[in-house]
């Protein structure tokens, strides 16, 4: 609370200059300036007007259509009473009065429609970042744009990649420290993955670091001090691949970037190696499925943990890294919490890269255990995808125990809230041909429910006790993000159209609302000009998990959508695509 007050005073001191630094804004819980709320990606708000005691009285305050019935994964931003929301392709940006829903302006980029054919899993966008009077976000056709937050005028637009090389942009960039950090998508297209820093003021590229290739390309130099021996060596981004294969080796950066102002480091994970068929790329395939720590100013790599060397199942490790201070062996340490796609909850020292713990949080058959002394998984040899063999019963399936959908951490309950899926798969590899601009996969996949007849879960995980405290089973994969507040509520949405508010302590359902379309978006909360607390979330099913319901995909062919069709054949009978932003509040005068 003191911190809250302090931020509020800072805000007052900054007076009308509300084109502020998001470093300050993220401490003011009336706002939500970044997709992850803050640099640490906690998605926690100290607002408590809506709380576990009154959430049952929530009502719809207003709604808005972003006009594109594709998967809506974006987190709305709220700064200074204005809400900014990005739709799926064609990536229009809308500015709305956050209290009334009145539209102020929209910005419509001329996105190349061909980009739709290069995006692996629906044409989603995960949101924007606010800093110093500008909104920064990415368009599917590889542009990062800066838009004046007041007027909606374009400040700059920088093209960062080529769709003819299979690249797209879907992630929410992170604006911090005068720079915009952006990573590319295209793990299914054999792209050369990278993260790029742009100057916030001009859009000029400051540095770019690739995920595969020479030490120079990966920005590995004298400052690189990895914790584990398998990350030490020269040009491992080339030598851990068969001759030349690194060039189509993937490692895109399409997830989340966190930032630690104290050490001036950014943290992010890289995606899967290309192609999915692991038989074509003997070796560790560095630096795919790897967590990097980099200097924000120069891009220099500081350390790297390859979570899944020689990934065999499309276990990207782009999942968010929450920056928390947790007691480890009796001492509070700066850690990075990485809810792994591979089904392990990693707690890692963010100064050194040492893995303190790695615990399974869902059914896992493909990795027997994780060796934290070596920093490597013990893969299950029985489930090695031999070429042409239909290997059955691999858990988790390719989307992992958790995919992009971000978790939230409450310092109040000390729990991590995990929206995730519970799927297994059959997986048959074949030789893939690299043709730039076309998919580079080589796997026929069929996914299905994991043990226990459910496909999704919303769970609360005790990070210090290293255990799952409670869990709610959902019929469909939980592909939405979540957020948690000091009012002791956690919020998420389901693909079968339920907006849900649960008690953060025990998971008890407090409120639910049946929306126009299923949820795969990210909930946020803020305070309106009228002093009321609001909760906003985009409905609109889609993404990898829900494309079956919004696109021309056949539910009777299980291998569709990279095998996700099999897991959700019944989804089109409960929802269609949508584009409606839902905003909830307590009745006027109803806060108690």
């Amino acid at each position, binding site marked *: 609370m003191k911190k809250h007050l302090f931020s509020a005073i800072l805000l007052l001191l900054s007076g009308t200059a509300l084109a502020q630094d998001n470093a300050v804004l993220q401490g003011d819980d009336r706002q939500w300036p970044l997709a992850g709320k803050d640099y640490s990606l906690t998605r926690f708000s100290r607002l408590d007007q809506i709380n576990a005691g009154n959430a049952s009285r929530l009502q719809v305050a207003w709604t808005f259509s972003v006009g594109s019935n594709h998967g809506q994964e974006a987190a709305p931003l709220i700064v200074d009473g204005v809400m900014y929301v990005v739709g799926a392709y064609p990536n229009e940006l809308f500015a709305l009065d956050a209290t009334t829903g009145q539209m102020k302006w929209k910005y419509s980029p001329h996105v190349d429609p*061909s*980009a*739709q*054919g290069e995006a*692996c*899993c629906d044409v989603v966008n995960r949101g924007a970042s606010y800093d110093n009077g500008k909104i920064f976000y990415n368009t599917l056709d590889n542009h990062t744009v800066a838009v004046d937050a007041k007027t909606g005028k374009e400040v700059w637009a920088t093209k960062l990649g080529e769709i003819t090389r299979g690249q797209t942009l879907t992630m929410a960039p992170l604006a911090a420290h005068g720079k915009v950090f952006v990573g590319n998508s295209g793990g*299914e297209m054999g792209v050369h993955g990278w993260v790029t820093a742009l100057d916030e003021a001009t859009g000029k590229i400051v540095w770019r670091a690739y995920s595969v290739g020479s030490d120079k390309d990966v920005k590995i130099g004298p400052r690189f001090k990895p914790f584990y021996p398998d990350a030490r060596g020269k040009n491992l981004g080339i030598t851990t691949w068969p001759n*030349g*294969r690194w060039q*189509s080796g993937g490692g895109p950066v399409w997830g989340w970037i966190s930032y630690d102002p104290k050490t001036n480091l950014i943290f992010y994970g890289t995606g899967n190696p290309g192609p999915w068929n692991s038989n074509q790329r003997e070796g560790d395939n560095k630096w795919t499925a790897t967590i990097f720590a980099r200097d924000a100013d120069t891009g220099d790599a500081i350390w790297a943990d390859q979570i899944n060397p020689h990934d065999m199942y499309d276990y990207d490790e782009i999942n968010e890294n929450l920056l928390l201070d947790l007691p480890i062996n009796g001492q509070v340490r700066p850690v990075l919490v990485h809810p792994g796609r591979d089904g392990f909850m990693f707690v890692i020292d963010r100064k050194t890269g040492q893995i303190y713990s790695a615990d*399974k949080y869902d059914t*896992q*058959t493909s990795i027997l*255990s994780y060796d934290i002394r070596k920093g490597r998984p*013990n893969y*299950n040899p029985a489930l090695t995808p031999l070429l042409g063999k*239909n290997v059955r*019963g691999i858990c988790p399936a390719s989307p992992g125990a958790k995919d992009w959908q971000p978790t939230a951490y409450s310092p109040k309950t000390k729990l991590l809230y995990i929206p995730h899926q519970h799927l*297994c798969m*059959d997986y*048959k590899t*074949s*030789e*893939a*041909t*690299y*043709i730039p601009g076309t*998919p*580079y996969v080589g796997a*026929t996949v*069929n996914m*299905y*429910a*994991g*043990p226990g*007849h459910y496909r999704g879960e919303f769970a609360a995980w005790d990070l210090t006790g290293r*255990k*799952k*405290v*409670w*869990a*709610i089973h959902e019929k469909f994969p939980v592909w939405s993000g979540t957020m948690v507040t000091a009012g002791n509520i956690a919020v998420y949405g389901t693909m079968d159209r339920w907006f849900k508010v649960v008690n953060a302590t*025990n*998971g*008890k359902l407090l409120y639910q609302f049946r929306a126009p379309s299923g949820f795969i978006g990210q909930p946020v909360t803020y305070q309106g000009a009228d002093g009321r607390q609001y909760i906003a979330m985009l409905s609109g099913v889609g993404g990898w998990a829900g494309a079956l319901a919004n*696109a*021309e*995909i*056949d539910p*009777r*062919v*299980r*291998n569709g*959508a*990279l095998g996700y069709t*099999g897991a*959700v*054949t019944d989804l*089109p*009978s409960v929802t269609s695509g949508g584009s409606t932003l839902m905003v909830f509040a307590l009745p006027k005068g109803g806060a108690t």
Partner: protein
Amino acid sequence: MNRFLWIVIALTGLVVVVVAVGVSSAMMPGAWKKPALAKGYSGMVPAEAMLRVPVSGIYPGGNSNGLNPDMQNPLKNDPDAVIRGMKDFENFNCSGCHMANGGGGMGPALSNDTWIYRSSPANIYLDIAQGRSAGMPAFGAMLPDRTIWELVAYIQSLSNKPTPTFGVTTSAAPDSAPEEQVPAGQVQSPTPWNYTEPTPPNGEKNDAGDQRPDAPLPPGAEQAKPPLQLVTQ
């Protein structure tokens, strides 16, 4: 009339350019090399005839007036074309977007009778050769026309679903799709609609059986601990 002529000339040039670049048949998996130039459009169907294939179903004045919406596949009577097309579909990464058996993903499903740019074999040919603005690459830049006609034959076979109706019903109860294709990981066939099985309820069928995740984990495997509390709603 003058303008029309110019358009015809321009389009003829375009089609010739688009299909003029071929591909080496010995493409190595995993390593893409710039394809050797083929001798050109082999002319299985005259280029001018392809210009008369409409992608719209509306003819101003009501008369198609020389346009040919029903042009057939020149490989129609070649029984092996479908088999070769199936291999092409994999080798040129069609399966990466349209997926095994054409179930659809990044690209639309080919396993049904829904067509965005019309359904005739020549329409499908033009989809492949010219590409389409919503993301279909222009494969005429890479594939000789014979390969494209093989792909057309295979795609027609994929789309040959049983009991086509004017509209499609989707409902959970009663289940509007009580049958589905046998997964391609188990049966690979150029006629996947010949292999169907009952659709499992709620995607659940596959979580039982001795090869399935319910089976005990191998020795040495850590189990994920169950939650202390399972909350029911």
